C-alpha cells in the first residue's frame, strides 16, 4: 500500500490506484482493428472493383481470419474463466452491448470471413483434394464438404454469393470495430472516453492499421517467396492508406479542437495529463512518429517521382510507423483513460508486469499468435495465383 502510494500524484479515489484494464485491453481494439481494416481492404477489390489491389485480396482475407481468431483471447485472459464466455450466447442480456457483441463477433467470424474464404478458395480446395492423397486428401475433401464440382457455372454462382457476403461484410466490419469505440465512447463518467466521435475514429483508425498491415505483409511475403512485387498494387494500397489516414487524422483533430473549444471541467486535468504522463506515447509516438511522419512519407510519394526501390522502402517505413502510431492510439485511449482520477484532482501510474497473466510477455505472445495462425492458414490455403495454377496442372495429371 505504502509503495503503491508513491505512484500517485494529488488526490485519487482508492479504486483508481491500480489500473483495472491492462495492456491486454489495449491489444483487443488493436487486433479487432486489424481484422476490420484488412477485410475492408479486401472488399475494395470485390465490391468496389479496384482491380489493382487484387494480388493482396486473398492474403488480406486470411490475415483478417488469423487475427479474428485471436481477437477474443486478450479479453478471456483478462477476465479469466474463458468457459464462462459461452454463457453469453446461452442467456444474452439484450441491454448489454458486450453481450450483443458476442453475436456480432460470431456472425463476422462464421458468416462473413469463413464463408467468404471458403467460397473464394473452393476451387483451390477441390483441386488440392484431387491432387493429394491419404490424410491430406481427406482433409481437403472435408473442407470441400465432399463436393467435387468446380464447373464454370458453380464457380460463377460462388462468385455471386461471395460478392453478396462481402457487401454484407462491410457494415459487419464497421459494426465490429465501431462497437469497440462505442464501448469506450459510452462511458459517460470518463471524460477522456465519453465522445460520440469515438466509434467513428475507431473505424477509420482500424482501416488505417489493417491497410498498413496488409501493405507490410504483402512486401514481406514477396521478399520471402522471392517473387516480384506488383508495384501498381503496392502504390494503390499506399494511396488508400494515405486517404484513410488523412480522414482518420482529421477526425482525431476535430475531436481535439472540440475538446479545447468546449473546455469543460475536465479539460485542465486531461490537458495536464497529455503534457506529462502521456507526452511520450501521445504527442511523440502517436501524433508525430505514428501519424504525421507516415502521412508525410506517403504524401511525398504522391508529390515526387521516386524510384521503385525508394517507394518500397518508404512504404515499408510508413507501414511500420503507422502500426506503431495506431497501437499508441489504443494505448493512450485505454491506459490514458485510467491514469487520472474521476475527482479530476490527481493521477496514478500504470505499472505493467512482465511475466504475469496480464503482463508484457503474454501480450507479445498474443501479438505473435495471429502470425503463426496466418502461417498455418497460408500453408493450408496458399493465396497466390501460381499455387492455384500449379494445383490445376497436378490435378490434371
Amino acid at each position, binding site marked *: 500500500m505504502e509503495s503503491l502510494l508513491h505512484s500517485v500524484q494529488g488526490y485519487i479515489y482508492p479504486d483508481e490506484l491500480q489500473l483495472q484494464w491492462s495492456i491486454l485491453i489495449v491489444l483487443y481494439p488493436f487486433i479487432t482493428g486489424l481484422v476490420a481494416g484488412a477485410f475492408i481492404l479486401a472488399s475494395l477489390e470485390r465490391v468496389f472493383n479496384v482491380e489493382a489491389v487484387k494480388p493482396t485480396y486473398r492474403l488480406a482475407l486470411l490475415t483478417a481470419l488469423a487475427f479474428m481468431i485471436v481477437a477474443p483471447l486478450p479479453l478471456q485472459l483478462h477476465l479469466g474463466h474463458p468457459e464462462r464466455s459461452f454463457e453469453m450466447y446461452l*442467456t444474452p442480456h439484450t441491454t448489454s452491448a458486450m453481450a450483443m457483441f458476442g453475436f456480432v463477433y460470431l456472425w463476422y467470424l462464421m458468416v462473413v470471413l469463413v464463408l467468404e474464404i471458403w467460397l473464394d478458395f473452393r476451387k483451390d480446395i477441390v483441386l488440392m483434394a484431387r491432387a493429394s492423397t491419404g490424410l491430406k486428401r481427406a482433409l481437403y475433401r472435408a473442407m470441400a464438404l465432399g463436393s467435387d464440382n468446380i464447373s464454370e457455372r458453380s464457380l460463377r454462382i460462388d462468385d455471386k454469393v461471395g460478392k453478396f457476403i462481402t457487401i454484407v461484410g462491410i457494415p459487419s466490419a464497421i459494426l465490429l470495430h465501431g462497437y469497440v469505440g462505442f464501448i469506450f465512447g459510452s462511458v459517460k463518467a470518463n471524460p477522456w472516453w465519453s465522445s460520440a466521435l469515438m466509434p467513428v475514429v475507431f473505424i477509420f483508425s482500424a482501416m488505417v492499421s489493417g491497410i498498413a498491415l496488409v501493405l507490410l505483409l504483402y512486401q514481406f511475403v514477396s521478399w520471402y517467396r522471392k517473387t516480384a512485387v506488383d508495384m501498381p498494387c503496392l502504390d494503390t494500397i499506399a494511396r488508400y492508406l494515405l486517404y484513410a489516414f488523412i480522414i482518420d487524422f482529421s477526425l482525431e483533430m476535430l475531436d481535439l479542437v472540440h475538446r479545447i473549444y468546449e473546455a469543460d471541467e475536465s479539460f485542465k486535468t486531461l490537458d495536464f495529463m497529455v503534457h506529462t504522463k502521456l507526452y511520450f506515447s501521445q504527442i511523440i509516438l502517436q501524433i508525430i512518429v505514428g501519424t504525421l511522419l507516415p502521412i508525410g512519407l506517403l504524401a511525398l510519394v504522391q508529390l515526387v517521382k521516386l524510384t521503385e526501390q525508394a517507394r518500397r522502402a518508404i512504404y515499408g517505413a510508413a507501414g511500420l510507423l503507422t502500426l506503431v502510431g495506431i497501437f499508441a492510439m489504443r494505448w493512450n485511449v485505454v491506459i490514458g483513460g485510467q491514469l487520472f482520477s474521476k475527482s479530476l484532482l490527481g493521477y496514478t501510474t500504470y505499472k505493467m508486469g512482465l511475466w504475469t497473466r496480464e503482463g508484457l510477455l503474454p501480450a507479445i505472445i498474443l501479438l505473435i499468435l495471429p502470425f503463426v495462425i496466418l502461417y498455418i492458414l497460408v500453408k493450408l490455403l496458399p493465396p497466390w495465383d501460381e499455387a492455384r495454377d500449379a494445383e490445376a496442372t497436378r490435378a490434371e495429371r
Partner: protein
Amino acid sequence: MREWLRDREHLVRMGILFAGALAVFLVVRAVMVPKDFGTYGHFRTGALADNMAHPLVFAGRQACGDCHDDIVASRKGSKHEQIGCEACHGALEAHASADDPSALKPKLPDVKTICLVCHRENVAKPAGFPQVDPKDHGDGGPCTSCHNPHHPEIS
C-alpha cells in the same frame, strides 16, 4: 430442380452444416439454461433459494443486545456507539444461537491490531479523525490499557 441443384449442391451442403450447427446450439441451450431462468429477472430464480439456504454467520446487533445490555448501555453517547459489535468481535451467530452460549465463548480481538485497522495514521483520512502512529503513541502497550473500546473517549 435437379439441374438447378447440380451446381449449387455445395452451397446447400454448407447451408445444412450451418443449420445443423444452429440446431446443436439450440439443443445445448435448451439443456444448459436452467428451467427457472428469467422468471423474476435476468437470473436463475433458484439462486434466491440457494442464497437463503446459506447458513447465517452474523447474528446482528440486536441479538448481542438481548444478553449484553450492560455493554449496549456503556456505549451510549460514545463515538463507537454506531459500530456493529461483530465488526470487532467477529461473526457470532453460532454463539448467539447456541443452547449454551457460554460454552461457545468468542475470543477477544487482538487490540494491538484491530484498533489500528481504523486508527492508523494516514494522510488520506479526514484531519479530524482520531489517528495515531503506533511508534509515537501508546509505548507499544495495548490500546485498552488507556482506552475503553466500548467508550474510547478519554475524559
